[in-house]
Structures are given as C-alpha cells and as structure tokens.
C-alpha cells in the first residue's frame, strides 16, 4: 500500500534509465522505509533533541549498515552505488539519521573490514551490520580539526595491552556507542587505529548539548583517562593518516549522495506548496521569481544527480579518487544548503514552521557542510588537485 507521505522525486534527466532494476528496488525500499518510519516522527525527535533509537534496529533489519560488506561477514554484498542511494534516501528523511548510518557504515564497519584482523571482523562486523551494537569514530580533537595529524591522543605499550590517554570531540553516536574506532599516536608518534569498547575504567563519553543542528542525532566527546585497551584490538598494519582518511573518503562519498536527498526533499515540498498556494488569484508557482528559485533548484539537483551517478560507477570500479569525492561532497552539500534556504522562502512564513522540512534540513546542513572536511578545506583539496600546489598551510 502506498505510503501516505507525499514525495515525488525530481528526475529531469531520466536518471532512472541509468540505474539497474535492483538499484531502483534498493532506493525505493529505503524511500518507503523513510516515509514510514522517519518522516512521520522526525520533527518531534528533532524538536526534543532526542535520538530515535528505534530506528537503529529497523535500519539493521533492513540491511542499511555496511551494504557493501560481503555475506561472509553478515553484509548483503551490494555495491557502492547501492550505498549511495541508501544515503540519499536516508538524508531525504534527516541528516542526523543519515549521519548515524554513515558513521556506523563508513567510519566503523569500513575500517574494521579494511584494516581489522580476521578475529576483529568476525567479532564485530555481524553485530554492527545488524545494528545490535553501535559504533563511533574518534579522530577530531578539541584543538585538532582540519589538522588531524597534530593530534595529541596517545597510547603506550604495556605488553598485552596499551594505555590510552586523550580526548576526542564532535563524535557522532558517542554516548550510545558500544565501540569506538580511535586514532591515536604511539610512542614514536605514529598514528594507529584501535577498537575501544565502551564502559571500561577511565572511559567516558559526555554529550554535547545546545546544538541547533543534527538534533535527532547524538553528538558528544570521548575521553580516555588511562584506558586499558587489549593489544588484539589494534589494527595490525595501517599506520599514519592514510587509515582515517580512507574512512573519511567512504563517509564523504555517502554524504555527497545524502545531500542530494535533502535537496530533493526541499525541492519537492516547495514545488508542491507553490502549486497549491494562491496569491493574486493564481498559484504562486506561476510567478517568475518563484519559478527562478524552483528552476535553479531543479537544475542544480539534476547536475548533482548526474555527478553522483558517475561517482558511484567510478567508486565501483575503484577509480574514484579522494579529490573527486571531495569535490562532490563540497558541491552537493553547498547546493543542498542553498536550495534549503531558497525553497524556504517560497513558503513564506509557513517555511519557518516544522510543518515543512526546510528549516530542519537547513540547520542540519550547517553541520554537514562543516564535518568530514569543511567547505573551505574541500576547496583547497580541489585547488591542490588543479594546481599541484597544496595551499593548506
């Protein structure tokens, strides 16, 4: 039975013809789930600044965590295009919900799959994929954001375990996480990754309050005060920033798709409203200034859809570079934020209420444009790619 939530996806360039039937079933299934489980309640959770924890179990049952993980570790073994489409639809619901799923998939499942030992994979992946346990990712520190290489969190070798000290900040899922992937320096100053189980002595995860953004998702800190981590929880091979940056690449790829979903949601809501709302005796969709906003939004969404589809194919082929993903993340999030602001204006005063999704998307996207590499840093990545001259510092 069709869901009662109204949504008609803009598809100006007949993108559906480019997707396989299986990709369309995947996208439509997540779309149906978002219409059924996210859309009817998300404004309430956002307003209360509460994480809708029931969604974790449902997303796990649906197979939205680690969709590209092979069957042997409990995943469905889909491709990166499928992952992108899942993220697009989740963020059409809410960036906070998508953020939770992004972290679980790209920042926790992905590094264990790529860098973990066989024992670590068998121990954690099936439960992370099913949503039975939740993970988070600790890289950013209070004084080290865009420059993670300067991190001060450290560990010392104590034989069969290490002792971890330091603090991580702006951590999605921190307070609800059962495990965290923590990046810290060893005694030689080399960055290593490890799996830290929550709740041990010296471990705490205080929540960050007062957010005007991502209110339906949990953000907090991770504080390690002489936390004992078994040696077998360290990733054995990966060293340096390459480890965390490859995770961020996967996450940024998902974010670039997600932002398109948020933009599509704003566009659809505004178009529907503009056709129904009458002023001066005709629908406001018939006025040139409103058409300008809608036409520009449709143009930008269409460009982003094409870029995402191409990026999905490149990622499936192993040819999507960090710079390509960076460009897509920067472009799409900026595009979505602009569309959220413009489409909100179409709704006039109604646009500021929670009867419509624009304000929530707009507030959420202020985080999305900042995390996983700020808007400015991504510009410098493209600049370095174009000129061959890094201008970060």
């Amino acid at each position, binding site marked *: *039975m*069709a869901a009662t939530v*109204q949504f*008609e996806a803009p*598809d100006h360039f*007949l993108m559906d013809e480019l997707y396989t*039937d*299986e990709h*369309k*079933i*995947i996208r*439509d*299934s997540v779309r*149906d*789930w978002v219409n*059924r489980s996210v859309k009817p309640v998300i404004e309430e959770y956002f307003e209360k600044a509460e994480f809708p924890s029931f969604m974790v179990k449902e997303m796990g*049952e*649906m*197979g*939205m965590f680690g*969709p590209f993980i092979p*069957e042997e570790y409990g995943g*469905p*073994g*889909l491709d990166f295009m*499928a992952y992108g489409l*899942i993220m697009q639809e989740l963020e059409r619901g809410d960036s906070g919900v998508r953020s939770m799923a992004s972290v679980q998939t790209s920042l926790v499942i992905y590094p264990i799959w790529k860098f973990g030992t066989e024992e670590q994979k068998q121990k954690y992946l099936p439960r992370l994929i099913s949503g039975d346990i939740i993970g988070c990712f600790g890289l950013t520190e209070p004084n080290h954001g865009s420059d993670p290489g300067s991190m001060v969190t450290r560990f010392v070798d104590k034989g069969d375990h290490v002792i971890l000290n330091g603090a991580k900040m702006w951590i999605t899922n921190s307070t609800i996480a059962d495990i965290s992937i923590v990046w810290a320096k060893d005694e030689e100053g080399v960055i290593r990754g490890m799996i830290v189980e929550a709740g041990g002595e010296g471990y705490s995860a205080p929540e960050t309050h007062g957010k005007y953004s991502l209110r339906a998702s949990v953000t907090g800190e991770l504080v390690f005060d002489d936390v004992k981590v078994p040696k077998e929880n360290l990733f054995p091979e990966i060293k340096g920033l390459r480890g965390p940056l490859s995770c961020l690449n996967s996450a940024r790829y998902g974010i670039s798709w997600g932002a398109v979903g948020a933009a599509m949601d704003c566009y659809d809501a505004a178009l529907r409203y503009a056709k129904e709302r009458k002023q001066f005796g005709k629908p406001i969709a018939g006025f040139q200034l409103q058409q300008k906003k809608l036409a520009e939004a449709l143009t930008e969404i269409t460009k982003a859809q094409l870029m995402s589809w191409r990026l999905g194919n490149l990622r499936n082929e192993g040819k999507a570079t960090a710079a390509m993903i960076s460009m897509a993340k920067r472009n799409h999030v900026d595009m979505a934020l602009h569309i959220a602001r413009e489409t909100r204006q179409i709704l006039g005063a109604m646009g500021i209420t929670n009867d419509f999704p624009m304000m929530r998307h707009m507030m959420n996207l202020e985080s999305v444009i900042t995390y996983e590499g700020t808007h400015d840093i991504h510009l410098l990545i493209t600049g370095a790619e174009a000129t061959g001259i890094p201008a970060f510092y």
Partner: protein
Amino acid sequence: MKILVCISNVPDTTTKIRFTDNNTAFDAAGVQWIINPWDELALTRALELKEASDTSIETITVINVGPQSTEPTIRKALAIGADDAVRVDAQAPDAYAVAANLAGYIKENPYDIIFCGIDSSDYNGSLVGGMLAEFLELPSVSSVSKLDIEGDTVKMNREIDGGSEVLTTPTPFVAIVQKGIALEPRIPSMRGIMMARKKPLNVVPPAVDEALTEFISYELPPSKAACKMVDAENVKELVDLLHNEAKVI
C-alpha cells in the same frame, strides 16, 4: 501446503494519469510500477502464515501475467520473501486474458491456496479472482479480511453489509483478499534484494492470447469544482445552493 499469490503490475498510486494515441491508450512514459497494493498485502499474509510455527507451508510462489517489463515488480515480490516466481509471457489486455492465463498455468501446477487481491488499482475491474476460480472449478471466498490456517482447514473473516462473516473452507481454493488481510506490506531488505537475484523466475508461454474486451477510449474524471464556503448561520443560502446549484436535493 503450497501457496500461490497472483500479482499485478500497476502504476504507482501517485501516478499522474495521461493518455496517448487520441485517448485510446494509457501513456506509460515515466510511470513507476508497483505490485498492486491488495496483492502485496496478500503476499504479506502468505509470508506471515509461512513464518507461523503451526502451519506447514512449503513454498510461496508469485505469478504475474505480463511482458518482460513487469519483471522488476516480480523481483520485488521475491525480495520481499516469495520463494520463486512465474511470469506468463503475455500482454494482459483484460481480466479474461489474465484469469485464463493464470488458470492455464495453475491447472498444470496446482496450489493449495491461491491468493488474489480483490481489485487491481489500475483498472478496478474486481474480476480476475472470481473468473480464475470458475476456470479452475475451485471454490472461492471474496472480500477476505482475515485468514488463518487450522490443520487442513482455512478459517476466514469476510466483510459483509453491517458486519463480518466467519467461514471455513477446505483446500484448494481461491482467496480473494482485501484491506485488513495484513496490517501493512513489507519493505524488502537489502539482504532480501540480494537473495532475490538467485531465486527462480520461470517464464512460461501463454495459454490464451485473446481478449474479450476492447477499450474504445479513455477519459479523465471531471476536475472537482472549487469549494464554496457558506456562513454557518446562513442555512437558507446553503439549502438554496444544494437545491439549485449542486442539484443534490
């Protein structure tokens, strides 16, 4: 026990209906296709029955009469949980052609319970279930809103004027189901979608290739007139409008 669920491939219920060829054909360009909602509920109930520990259902098969373009809809049914699928390779120009082709297959491949949705949301004919039962010379129960299996007997609730009727029937039979048979349809999981790749989808030739109905032309319903507001105090004006303008009293 084997269950067969007949599924129809219909336009999404939010589709904007347009016609082509001088209003003699439905314009399928850009249309999203879905499993007919009542058929999807029937499939959901069949899956619930299979999962219930006290029933002995071996397989759930879905069957569709249609061209190759309907296969994404069939794959979705497999992703939701059907074990295998059959596509009778024929156009489905009218209810007779659909029912006769379903019957042609089922006569050779019998099932214990055959589910049909009460209606298909495109043409709203409400004909296929009854016709199919007649072709198969099987009993049928219509407007079924609840269905349980108790041993070899199937117990059902059927909606009737002012209430509901409870009845039982031995198998095999055709259950023509309506809203209420299951709470809400299932959404395919990613694992289900992946597993659907490996499930059999058998394409069989049609038993009949004729239709008994010819569509002459289509037209959209007239658009609704604008709502007219009448002051609650002004009953005289309301009666006058209902009498002279709306002409309903």
